[in-house]
């Protein structure tokens, strides 16, 4: 497989781009693997990649019911940040950020991480205090964070609504300069290509319909392409975790909800950063192609349908105009929805399950994309060593029993509130 570089582009261009090879193979499943990862999204592919790279476990397959990267990896708002306050979250997301920062080189695939910074706007003194606490935790843990007052935000983001007409005036913002966006599809493709290079089999169009059991232990999966045995089975199927775990007899602290995203027509550069509105659940950035990428609130009810309803469209676009009034005449090009695992405390699960042979990576709520590298890294560690790494040691399944809810928003066990 050819290495990607400016030189390779030049060389291939001269030969009419006729000689590029496949980015990854399309193998038939082998009868058995050491580790089988269910779910060919960013998390599953990253897990396979790090199993091979970090733990030298190469007899690995990733099976995907559709096409790789077709779940939430391909339908998010591409934001990457590490501004988490709760112990258990903070260092995990910072590990992710650090992996992101060298991911393009690591994978030899440009994932276009653009560290254009992210502003979390505050609209009350109380929000400023909460932001200060978050920023302080970040700084104390070696993560960059700055707290800006209204004037500084106004200097940096002059296009927000500072008029008397504004319903929720900006009081200030917390800013992480290393945050930004990455090209979402490239993450799946880059990990797929790199994992494939390490010998991982990526098997698309292969749906898990059940598990293979032996003595109460899971020893593989039954798929639409036949049974595949595995020493260990890892689930990385965010959005469908509840459904697939139930086939293994697990009831999880997870509900599945749909989240919409939106993109406008492409424009010349207008918004050079990522902005999160503090008066409603809304965030916006601009893609390299020029489209304004926007995310809103959950539909509010359990859903496995990748359908988005009008109330949330109104909510998100209303927030867009409230935040930046001049967006009014710009046009929405597409809306779509992804289904996500909303956990009861808003934080993920990366852990062994009570079922021997089954490992779980899920419950990502809104935050799965940014977590992709660390999620794969920590899940690979957990599978390889049969124990969590320090960075995912709080992402257990039984934390609700002992009471350490990693409730970053303080909303309690109400998934649609996180």
């Amino acid at each position: 497989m050819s290495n990607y570089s400016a030189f390779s582009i030049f060389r291939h261009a001269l030969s009419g781009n006729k000689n590029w090879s496949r980015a990854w193979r399309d193998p038939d499943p082998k009868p058995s693997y050491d580790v089988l990862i269910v779910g060919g999204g960013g998390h599953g592919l990253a897990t396979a990649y790090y199993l091979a790279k970090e733990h030298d476990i190469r007899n690995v397959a990733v099976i995907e019911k559709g096409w790789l990267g077709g779940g939430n990896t391909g339908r998010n708002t591409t934001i990457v940040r590490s501004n988490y306050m709760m112990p258990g979250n903070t260092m995990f997301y910072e590990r992710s950020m650090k992996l992101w920062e060298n991911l393009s080189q690591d994978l030899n695939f440009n994932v276009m991480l653009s560290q254009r910074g992210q502003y979390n706007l505050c609209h009350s003194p109380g929000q400023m205090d909460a932001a200060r606490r978050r920023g302080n935790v970040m700084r104390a843990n070696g993560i960059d964070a700055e707290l800006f007052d209204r004037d500084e935000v106004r200097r940096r983001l002059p296009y927000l609504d500072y008029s008397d007409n504004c319903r929720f005036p900006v009081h200030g913002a917390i800013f992480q300069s290393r945050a930004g966006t990455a090209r979402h599809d490239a993450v799946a493709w880059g990990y797929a290509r790199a994992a494939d290079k390490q010998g991982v089999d990526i098997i698309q169009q292969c749906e898990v319909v059940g598990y293979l059991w032996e003595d109460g232990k899971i020893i593989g999966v039954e798929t639409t392409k036949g049974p595949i045995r595995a020493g260990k089975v890892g689930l990385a199927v965010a959005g469908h975790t509840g459904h697939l775990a139930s086939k293994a007899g697990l009831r999880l602290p997870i509900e599945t909800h749909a989240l919409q995203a939106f993109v406008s027509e492409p424009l010349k550069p207008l918004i050079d950063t990522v902005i999160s509105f503090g008066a409603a659940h809304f965030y916006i950035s601009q893609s390299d192609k020029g489209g304004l990428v926007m995310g809103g609130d959950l539909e509010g009810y359990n859903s496995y349908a990748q359908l988005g309803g009008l109330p949330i469209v109104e909510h998100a676009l209303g927030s867009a105009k409230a935040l930046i009034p001049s967006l009014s005449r710009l046009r929405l090009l597409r809306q779509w929805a992804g289904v996500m695992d909303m956990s009861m405390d808003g934080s993920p699960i990366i852990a062994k399950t009570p079922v021997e042979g089954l490992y779980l990576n899920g419950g990502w709520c809104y935050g799965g994309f940014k977590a992709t590298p660390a999620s794969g890294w920590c899940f690979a560690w957990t599978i390889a060593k049969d124990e969590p790494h320090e960075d995912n040691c709080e992402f257990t399944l039984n934390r609700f029993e002992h009471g350490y809810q990693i409730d970053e928003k303080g909303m309690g066990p109400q998934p649609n509130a996180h």
Partner: protein
Amino acid sequence: MTSSRLSTGGRIDRSTVLKMTFDGRSIVGHPGDTLASALLANDENVIARSFKYHRARGIYTAGVEEPNALVQLRYGARTEPNTPATTVMAYEGLEAFGQNAWPNVRLDVGVVNQLLSPFMSAGFYYKTFVGPFKGTGFWMLCEKIIRQAAGMGRGVTLDDPDTYEKVNAFCDVLVIGSGPAGLSAALAAGRAGAKVILVEQDSTLGGSLLSAPVGGDGDAWLDKMKAELTAMDNVQILTRSTVFGAYEQNVYGVIERVWDHVLAPPAHQPRQRYWQIRTKQAVMATGAIERNMVFGGNDKPGVMLASAARTYVNRFAVLPGRRVVVATNNDSAYAAALDLANAGSSVTLVDARTQVPEKLLDSLKASGVKVLLGHGVLTAKGRGGVSAATVTTISPDGRATGTARHIPCDLLAVSGGWSPVVHLWSQRGNKPVFNSAKACFVPVNSAIETMKCAGASMAADGSVVAVAQGFSAGATAAIDVKAKNSSGDAPIAPKVSHGDDWGRDLLSINTITDDNGKTRGKAFIDLQHDIKQSDIDLAYREGYVSVEHLKRYTTTGMATDQGKLSNFNALSQMAMLQGVPISDVGTTVFRPPYTPIALGAIVGREHGTHFRPTRLTPLHDWHVNNGAIVSEAGAWMRPQYYPERGEGLREAYIREASHVRKHVGMIDVSTLGKIAVQGPDSAEFLNRVYVNGWKMLPVGRLRYGVMLREDGIVMDDGATARLGEHDYFMSTTTANAAKVLALGEHLLQTAWKDLKVHLTTITDQWAVIAVAGPKSRDLLGAVSSGADLSRDALPNNHFVHGEIAGVTVRIHRMSYSGELAYEVYIPSGFGHHVWDALISAGVPYNLCPYGTEAMGALRIEKGHVAGPELDGRTTMKDLGLEGLASGKKPFVGSVLRNRPVLIHQSRPCLVGLEIEGDQGAQAGSLLYLDTGPTEGHGEGWVSSATYSPALGKNIALSLLQNGPERLGETIRVVNFVGGTRQRAKVVSPHFFDPSGVRQND
């Protein structure tokens, strides 16, 4: 008269001349024109530049599928980037500008990108720009340049001067599209008596009929249909309105462009109207979109869809070319050839098929159209625009079999078949099926019970079938909604010129190649995004074969036209490469909106002040009129402070808080949540929702209580008074009022159905004024009557009724400030009156109003927890409230609050801090051991901080690990983001009057 404008014909009003400009050059048009037809009439051929290679582009279509002719419409605050010229109605004073080009679309220097095109193949950016070093620096340098080059039009940072509105509508049958099928459907449903809404995106009804020559049978038919429809009261017609989305349960989103066809909307009138239509049945008669063919130079100005060329001639009386080559693989382009020839063009028709019916050929004979069967166009030649077509004989799979020859032309009109507009049907989660005879994807009409498809969107065979299908769909829909009358007989279909039956004998060729199967030159599949056939080939080679991978890797179909032209050709190329039928490749799922919609239209009036409704207390006007600074508290506006003589926040709150401790102050606390708890089981209910006991509370008393969430975390606190035997008055925090009520109702209606309790919000019924300070009793005693406020008659946590200024009020003795304090409950409509009375009566007592900032300082001095401490993660133990919990009874959260982590010794718990030095601490600062590293999450954090006027110190409440056992310890308070490090002494949170002498006085 402009050069390409025909002297007769067309559906334009020649009696009026509209003056417009494009890139500063004057153009003229007539009412009925689109910007595109006016540009063509004025011989403007280069309208835009493409996304990647900046290739010159002209007008390609006559509709919403336009991939090329995007303009920046209007300027200043009203500018609209990326506007297809084909969808803009001409108006006096219209100004449009070329975009994505410098200095302009005619002379764009960005065209050099074309030289780099071999290096800019699909996905090239994934393979490079990573740079030689670690990190993202090199990429971001490259990205800056890429971002400047990308994008299309420009947004502005000026506020939109126009307004928008949303309308909710209800109907029985929604008919989408007003061509022969849609009109017939509306007629059938309308006659039956159903409530019908007919929506048409164009400015006038008629659909494909509008593209036929003026004066034909279609016009007469259209007039008759319009007359009958407009006479029906139960039929509402919306033109210039696009159904952008089909949602579950038959809800449709529509944007009506109410005043977009003028320079600016009239005063008070909305620019656009967003209709949210709830219907019982829908008929989708959305027609079909013609496809182009893939060959070298198929994007040049002068290449146009055949149907569009026909539309320009017949509807707009514009001759888009004098020497025309029409290239087709189906019958429909014959009508275009005929009409162009009849309008004066010399026309050569190149048909990929070797045999066509004699009748079809006969129809062209009289017009002088030259026909070449078994031929295709291999390339379009010309600089800046088409000057010739290279034509060759071809095999049935589109490969050249002979020697190419040039046919000079200035218009190359192409028809590669048609794609039914299935978007709305698909948005409901359905996949269309491939119809190989007609080479297109069609809906499965039975898939959605409440949506019927008809006409060209079902690939119907011509207008006779379209009318029959439409009428039947409308009639069936009417029966389904139980309309009373009969639909009568279907109208006789209009006789339209031959060729509308495009599916017949179609030869499915999409691409014309040389004898090696290669396209010549740059052959585009997605015109706007510059996706060439070779990009699809590359994606295939690299394994991006699924339609979603193909779409994402190449970005085909993701431009502003959303692939309306390109999707099919991309799919068929991928099918060819994979050697499978196109049906096996599948289609991408269509997402709303069908065409791009302005954000502002969806927002309607809910922006600015009306982004969310505002909640005002009954005393709000007084605060504003008396100089209060009011600030947002959730939905409420509350007075934060009342500055005197240029005071800032800090001076004002310190003065106000000091004043309360010295004299008497009053504050509007009407925002407190208030819930009536009524019924014989009220005490039991309270006993279950509060952690403390309520069974023994006598009438006339009130009690502070704490509520937990089901998971044992503290949710809310407040006081509840027992007004009568079965009648309690609960107060909640401002923030949690709705949550507490909803939870109570939930428990009563689901788990505790046996309890006879009713909850009703009475937040709005009562204005509440807290009066606090050593002189509060004197003041209230003086101003009220009928209430004995003496220490013995009204101790703390008691209430009494009395009268102030003629108003019956209830006075609770209750303190959050630590002072002798009362809460006066007043029917809200009299709140202002009583407040005024207190202000007047307060003069001798030195009464002053205070705001939320001073209230905060007072409660911090007293160690009362509030919002910052009740952050959804703290337990009663954390807040020092666990003593309140009853051990004798279960309550909400009583089991789960005892989970091991929640009762662990080392949890951060509430303490006070006295800050060393002159500067106050900031809430959100972290706490660390006095000596030792300041890193990690620390020992705790500062939740609330203030200057304490009573103590003359800066103090704070904080949560500190193992806090209550660390009183006296000195700790470090670090505000990293503020750049401050302070030391503080850990003290009891009850800073002021810990024994409560003052409040119990």
